């Protein structure tokens, strides 16, 4: 697993994906930081984290698009799958490499905290709570992206599908919000089902100061399930 993790980390930087990812992430989050904290004269970072959801949503596909699709296209998966390692090691090696880069990007928050420290008082509980919420959100999204990447040989297709899936997850709640007070039991059921697997409201909950353990557990479970599915996809390819 370590070998694959290290190679993936190297590949992020040699292929330039890491630079694009970090630059865009930091640039956009910097703008949000300026708008919501400095310009607003507000030491609370909750609004900043609320906006960050969109950045995460758009940038995760960039991170995961080529992780497995490129392997399949270049037939390098043949090297990995015939090496004396398990499928979980392959998948988790890649997963944690992407997650590491994400954490590096996200940790820009501490630079912002440093800036806030000069202007006022940092509200640490809120900041740290949100930081971890964002970490778990990313962990779940990366697993989804990795899974989608395992389904195709084309990294553009992988990125677009991943973006669409994440976007649908994001929008699904507002789509069904009208069903909440519906009289039809069926629509209510749909509403309940969708809100139960909602990413956005769970995440926003954190920015409002609620550190919900269920939500953390939800994100971690999503990450596990999608990694598991990725392993199954690799295994299925062998058996087809």
């Amino acid at each position: 697993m370590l070998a694959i993790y290290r190679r993936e980390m190297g590949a992020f930087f040699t292929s330039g994906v890491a630079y694009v990812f970090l630059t865009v992430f930091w640039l956009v989050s910097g703008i949000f930081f300026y708008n919501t904290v400095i310009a607003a004269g507000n030491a609370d970072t909750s609004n900043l984290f609320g906006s960050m959801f969109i950045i995460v949503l758009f940038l995760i596909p960039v991170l995961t698009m080529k992780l497995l699709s490129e392997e399949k296209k270049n037939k390098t998966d043949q090297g990995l799958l015939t090496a004396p390692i398990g499928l979980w090691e392959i998948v988790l090696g890649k997963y944690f490499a992407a997650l590491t880069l994400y954490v590096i990007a996200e940790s820009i928050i501490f630079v912002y905290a440093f800036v806030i420290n000069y202007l006022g008082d940092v509200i640490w509980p809120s900041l740290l709570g949100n930081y971890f919420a964002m970490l778990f959100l990313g962990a779940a999204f990366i697993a989804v992206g990795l899974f989608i990447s395992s389904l195709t040989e084309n990294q553009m297709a992988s990125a677009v599908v991943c973006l669409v899936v994440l976007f649908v997850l994001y929008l699904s709640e507002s789509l069904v919000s009208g069903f909440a007070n519906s009289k039809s039991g069926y629509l209510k059921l749909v509403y309940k089902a969708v809100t139960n697997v909602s990413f956005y409201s769970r995440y926003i909950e954190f920015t409002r100061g609620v550190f919900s353990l269920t939500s953390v557990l939800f994100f971690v479970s999503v990450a596990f399930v999608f990694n598991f599915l990725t392993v199954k996809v690799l295994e299925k390819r062998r058996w087809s």
Partner: protein
Amino acid sequence: MIEVRNLTKSYGDKLAVSNISFKVEKGEILGFLGPNGAGKSTTMNMLTGYISSSAGEVLIDGVDILEDPKKAKANIGYLPEIPPLYVDMTVEGYLSFIYDLKKCKLPRKAHLKDVCNLCKIYDVKDRIIKNLSKGYRQRVGLAQALINNPPVLILDEPTVGLDPKQIIEIRTLIKKLGKRHTVILSSHILPEIQAVCDRIIIINKGQIAADGTAEEIASDITNEHKMTLRIEGPTHTADDKRLITDAVKSISGVKYIRADMEREKGIYDYDVETDGKTDVRREINRICAENGWNILMLQLSDLTLEDIFMKITMTDGGSEKESEKKSRPAPKLDLKVGEDGSLNAVNEEEKDTEKKEVSEESNGGEE
């Protein structure tokens, strides 16, 4: 070392590999031969655990590849048809990654250096794989298979894309590796298999069409003979040609004779085809001796590996071959590598008398 039992792979209705069984002993170099799409790569992918088999089993050193894949795979070095190279890495970086991937315990620097030297890529070790030529990439691919010194090497068309000099180098290398490793190599290039392998398996349409040394395979499928004669007549004119043609034609067992091109002045080559049951060489020798003609060359040209290969792959699998084998008593044959590297079948009984004369002459006359 490697044991394959009733290996089968089907994609839906299409049977890619059907019921293949064979064994490879330690230190043996086995050649997989077959036309494109015969199932060579599929078989190799199953041997290495890249894809699963639909039925049957693969045992690497007694370990089933599907039951204990990690342990079985640790014994295999695999060079797939397209080397699994990460093109954005340097050669050294890539090999170092493979070293980690295979959880190699040998001293890293020394082992990587050994492998690089063996594959002659030490000079390019700091270059990015993307910028290497096909030949170098192929050698890097071979190098990654060699890391951790696996006892079994499986090489899928290892010499594809190399120039003639590199091909010879790689062949020599494979031969050298064959002393310490068990090697399975696939190719559709016949001289390559001939030059390198101890044993050959010919695969056609997903089935084993022939298995054995080149000699065994040749003796299994032979049923008719062609030979080339070079006879010197007394007058060195076209009259000789007619006389000799008529005389040889009259020998029973000769189906067909045709005077070929003039090799030396007034000396012709004759293509002779026999029915395969009778050995006409002694008779030819007798006639020539009686008439005072000199045989300058006698070469059985029917059983080069090319012919065997064509013969097997043109027919529909093994069943037809089997029946032929039973109905016709196969002459006992010995394979000789000629001066030009071609493989020629020679009848084993009495190669002593006739052959001496023949081979001496043919050395001079052949290109």
